């Protein structure tokens, strides 16, 4: 079964450093998402991406965050200058729209645990 792949599984960084979290969505999927989950809290929507541009972003997704689909397969989340409160699990998800019933189902990666020290 196709799956969403995220790397690295764990990233440790110093406050103020830039990090790039990588995701390979399921091929032929068209909609891509990043969510985050701070330990013990809800999964929160960060940003959605379609047709090579951001379609929606949450309040969390400020100027320190950016997303890119550099080569048609990878989907990256960059945090320019990390803060302690960015420590969380970051999930990538993708949605395919080829099947009517399946188009609302999001396929999630296993996540990247970001630890900002």
């Amino acid at each position, binding site marked *: 079964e196709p799956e*969403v792949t*995220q790397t690295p599984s764990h990233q440790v960084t110093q406050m103020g450093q830039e990090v790039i979290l990588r995701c390979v969505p399921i091929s032929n999927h068209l*909609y891509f*998402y990043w*969510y985050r989950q701070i330990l013990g*809290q*809800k*999964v*929160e*929507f960060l940003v*959605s991406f379609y047709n090579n541009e951001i379609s*929606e972003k949450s309040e969390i997704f400020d100027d320190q965050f950016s997303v890119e689909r550099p080569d048609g397969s990878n989907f990256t989340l960059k945090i320019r200058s990390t803060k302690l409160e960015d420590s969380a699990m970051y*999930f990538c*998800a993708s*949605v395919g729209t080829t099947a009517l019933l399946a*188009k*609302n*189902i*999001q*396929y*999630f*990666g*296993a*996540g990247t*645990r970001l630890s900002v020290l």
Partner: protein
Amino acid sequence: SQQGEEDPQALSIQEGENATMNCSYKTSINNLQWYRQNSGRGLVHLILIRSNEREKHSGRLRVTLDTSKKSSSLLITASRAADTASYFCATAASENDYKLSFGAGTTVTVRA
């Protein structure tokens, strides 16, 4: 925000028993979904119910939706140790808005 809120927060049951968890949300939805998350892992889609549906079954899972009360329930019948996980409801606002708003989750522990 139309984030779901689950209850209970945690549930501990014996293998073979049924587990029921509830979710409430705040605004109108197009569909409601349930996801499972094993410890430290990603979210796995379990079942989707649309706003015009009242009940759906998938294997040992039964989901109900009451749009008048803005609530849903997930029932896992004949639970197994492998069902130990956190379960989240998530809502999607409209037909073409796939962004999900998640609840806080119910942690289910199935004792052998």
